[in-house]
């Protein structure tokens, strides 16, 4: 039986996102030219929540897009049956903008590598920041986040699961052990 430990409950996630939103506005010196890009699947929901929080802080809406990195994965030729592709929708021209990549869990860094390559095919942002809810360690590439909700070192046999209300009916971050 896999055992599960709650790392963040719904209120802790809300507090983390509020802090991330403020930090993001501070790091970007406002919201001019800022575009949030959520990575499919759960990064999209988190990016949309951050956009609402930032709108609350700054008083005006900020654009928010979706990115599916499946076609840029470096293991596509070895995964067997093709993964289902999610929607990509980048509402704005990227040239000269500050793009904030939003994802739920940062692990090996390979997803972010793919996202950086894909974004480069859409344009040339002035700057790209990385914002994640959980950094679980275990990097295989030289990629680091700029803004983090929670740092939680996890062993290779452990999994960090993020649940969001919009898709899963509840907000939680849990650590699952297979043992």
């Amino acid at each position, binding site marked *: 039986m896999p055992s599960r430990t709650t790392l963040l409950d719904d209120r802790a996630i809300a507090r983390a996102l509020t802090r991330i939103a403020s930090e993001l506005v501070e790091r970007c010196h406002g919201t001019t030219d800022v575009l949030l890009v959520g990575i499919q699947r759960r990064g999209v929901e988190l990016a949309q929540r951050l956009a609402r929080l930032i709108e609350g802080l700054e008083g005006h809406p900020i654009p928010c897009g979706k990115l599916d990195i499946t076609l*840029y994965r470096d293991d596509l030729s070895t995964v067997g*049956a093709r993964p*289902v592709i999610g929607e*990509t929708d980048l509402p704005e021209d990227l040239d000269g903008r500050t793009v904030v990549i939003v994802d739920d869990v940062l692990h090996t860094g390979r997803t972010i590598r793919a996202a950086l390559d894909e974004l480069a095919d859409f*344009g040339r942002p002035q700057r790209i920041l990385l914002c994640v809810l959980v950094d679980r360690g275990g990097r295989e590439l030289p990629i680091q986040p700029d803004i983090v909700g929670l740092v939680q070192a996890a062993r290779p046999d452990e999994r960090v699961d993020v649940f969001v209300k919009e898709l899963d009916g509840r907000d939680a971050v849990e650590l699952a052990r297979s043992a």
Partner: protein
Amino acid sequence: MGAPSLGKDLVGLESLSAEQLRLILDTAERFKEVSERPIKKVPALRGKTIVNLFFEPSTRTRISFEFAEKRLSADTVNVASSGSSVSKGETLVDTARNLEAMRIDMVVIRHPASGSAEFLGKRIGSNVVNAGDGKHEHPTQGLLDILTLRDRFGKLEGLKVAICGDVLHSRVARSNIWGLTKLGAQVAVCGPASLVPRDIGSLGVEVIPRIDDAIAWADALNVLRLQLERMTGGFIPSLREYNRVFGVTRERIERARKDIVIMHPGPMNRGVEIDSDVADGPFSVILPQVTNGVAVRMAVLYLLAGGAADWQQQGGSE
């Protein structure tokens, strides 16, 4: 388990389940967006080599496959029957085995013999995609027609589609019938008795003898090309006569007093099976069909590239 796979080859829509058909259509939906990007290219098939083996003339299908391949970053080679060893009498299997010896990954084949794609798929390890085999099937055309209908109507269940004209010689008709009926649409065929197969009812389709009745019944018409190059006998009295009795004309569409979607797989014989007023008119989705063709072919190539890995793992070379 996980997502359904398509297997190694795409030979026809007859052998696919509704779930597999929906997987291709949903995947194609995503690939539409790739063709709208500033750089219309994704690295999904980087390092894969695809041979387009065309034993029959084709412009639209070959170019559409080539765009799909290039937008997935595959390397492509085009082989046409004229000007290659095929014209020296080399057999299909020899040609394909020689290509395989050069380490290719996929073959897209168009061939005048029904069953040739399946024949080839059973003899080589590369993925095989049927781009039209004789009178058998043209699965990617069927899929792009179905995707275009789904775009227009939002669903396929209960949709009434009439396939009109030269059904007898049409692989497009057969792929449409298989795909549409599996996805819950109602299909009828309409054409001269000499160009409608006698046993067509066994595929679950109705025969409507008069074009006016077909137009009155249908939500969408798929107007087939009169395949003059395949007609050796007296199938029809004359082209003018055909247009008079079976042509989809503006007068006929106006008389129906309703919205109807008009499709044609191309190339059109304007003034024969379809009038220019209709082909270029407000109900025509003939150009959206072409746009969807690239997305559907990208989806098929992407999904099959995963099938090859499964096939090799199962030791499927027997």
